[in-house]
Structure formats: structure tokens, C-alpha cells
């Protein structure tokens, strides 16, 4: 008998996790709005992205992509900063922590035991191994700018 791993979490779970992380740390004043008609390409010219991988009972990668404006706004909110200048290290820290929380919660939903990597953050689109395919994608907008959370897993 061959046991194949579940391909990944349900889209509804990715949606719920992302909204919970968002509202806990960024408040409900400006909610994250799901976009069900999002284009396949990421509609922003300047993008921050972050990825964490899970290895073990379930293997996959979770990525978060944000427009530069969203990345900067959420960093200011998370650090409770107003007009002080932001440096890239602060933005990388905040975006990395966001994917860490989403990835950690996805890991908890999938079969274990498994390990979560530390986040990798980049100024640019997220990259993932060519062995992985996208199994869930949640598109949203915040302050009118795009946010995308994707889950990638090996093809079964």
C-alpha cells in the first residue's frame, strides 16, 4: 500500500490563518479583504516576499508576497512606529515574522512530526524549488494593495 501525503492545507484554512494573524497584529480597523478574481501575476511592481519550509510528516513551502507599500505599513504597525524612517532590516524582520506565523500554523494543521525552517526574506517575488507546485493560494488586498499567501508542495 502506498501512503501519499496530503497535498496541502485547504484554501479555507490558509484564508482563516492569514486573517487571524493579520487581525491579531495589525488590528481590525483596516481588514484584509479577500480577492477572488486576482490575476495569476502579482499585481505590484515592488514586492517583498518571505518563505518558510516544513519538512517531515508533511513537506511544503509557505510564501507570503506583499507590495512594498503593504510591507512598510505593516512594519510600522508591528513596531508601533509613526514617521521615523524604516530600514530594510526592520521590514525583513516584520515580513519574516508574518510568514513564520502563517507557516507555523499551516504546519500545525498538517501531519507531523515535522520541522519548520527559519524564514527567508527577499525584496522581490518569492521563489521555490521546481519540484514543488502551488497547492493553495490566498489573494487579498489591504489598503487597496495586494497580499498573496501561497502553499507549495511536491507533486503527488
Amino acid at each position, binding site marked *: 500500500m502506498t501512503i501519499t501525503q496530503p497535498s496541502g492545507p485547504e484554501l479555507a484554512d490558509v484564508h482563516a490563518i492569514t486573517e*487571524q*494573524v493579520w487581525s*491579531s*497584529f495589525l488590528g481590525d480597523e483596516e481588514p484584509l479583504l479577500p480577492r477572488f478574481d486576482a490575476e495569476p501575476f502579482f499585481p505590484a511592481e515592488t514586492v517583498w516576499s518571505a518563505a518558510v519550509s516544513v519538512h517531515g510528516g508533511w513537506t511544503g513551502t509557505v510564501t507570503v508576497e506583499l507590495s512594498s507599500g503593504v510591507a512598510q505599513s505593516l*512594519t510600522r504597525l*508591528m*513596531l*508601533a512606529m509613526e514617521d521615523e524612517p524604516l530600514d530594510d532590516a*526592520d521590514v525583513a*524582520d*516584520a515580513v*519574516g*515574522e508574518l510568514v*513564520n*506565523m502563517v*507557516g*507555523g*500554523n499551516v*504546519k*500545525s494543521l498538517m501531519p*507531523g*512530526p515535522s520541522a*519548520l*525552517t*527559519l524564514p527567508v526574506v527577499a525584496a522581490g517575488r518569492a521563489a521555490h524549488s521546481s519540484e514543488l507546485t502551488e497547492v493553495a493560494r490566498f489573494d487579498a488586498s489591504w489598503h487597496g494593495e495586494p497580499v498573496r499567501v501561497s502553499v507549495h508542495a511536491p507533486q503527488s
Partner: protein
Amino acid sequence: MSKILVADDSKVMRQIVVRTLRQAGYSGHDVIEAENGRVCLEKALAESPDLILSDWNMPEMNGIDCLSALRSGGNQTPFGFVTSEGSEEMRTRAASAGALFLIAKPFTAETFQEHLGGIL
């Protein structure tokens, strides 16, 4: 006044933990910070905090290894995890290593009150 050691490799998350402690009514305590498990271990031994709140996944030394090193050296400082991974498996591992609780991110001030009430 108690001393609380907050360990997380993310400065943003350390700041959020400190802010949440304040929102949960634990302001006025002396908070010290560590950016990884190795520094957490050093500060736990050197500064004798009353409580350690630690991330699990950190570079250099992770939180569970830090806790194990403390306990194997006879140090019994109350220790709780604040981590993005809240599965039953992680909670069991945390409890077996001697952690009092595991708070999963994202969290609220109420979650902090629930777990810290009897400690601080």
C-alpha cells in the same frame, strides 16, 4: 518587581511580546531581551529572571535546547514558549522538557493573562 527574559530572533516579535505584556497588565516589570537561545541561556544564568518567554525556532540555539540546558544544569526558572507552532506534538515536547505553557502566535493579551496569572 519581577524580571522577565524575552527571547526571540525577531526584534519585531520581542517588541510585540513586551507590548502584549503591558496590555495584559504586566507593566512595570523589568524586561530583558535575547536574540537567540544561546544568549537566552547566558542571560538566564547571569541575570536570574523570574520568568522566561521564549520563541522555539531561533538561530544558534533553539528554545527547546535552551530549556533542556537550563533544566539539566538544575536551573528551574519558570519557562514558557511563545511560538508560531502550537500542535499537540510541540506542546507535549515542551511540557516534557519542563515548560509551563506554550502560547501559539498569533496571541492576545487575554492569552497572556491566562498563562501568566499564577506566575507573576
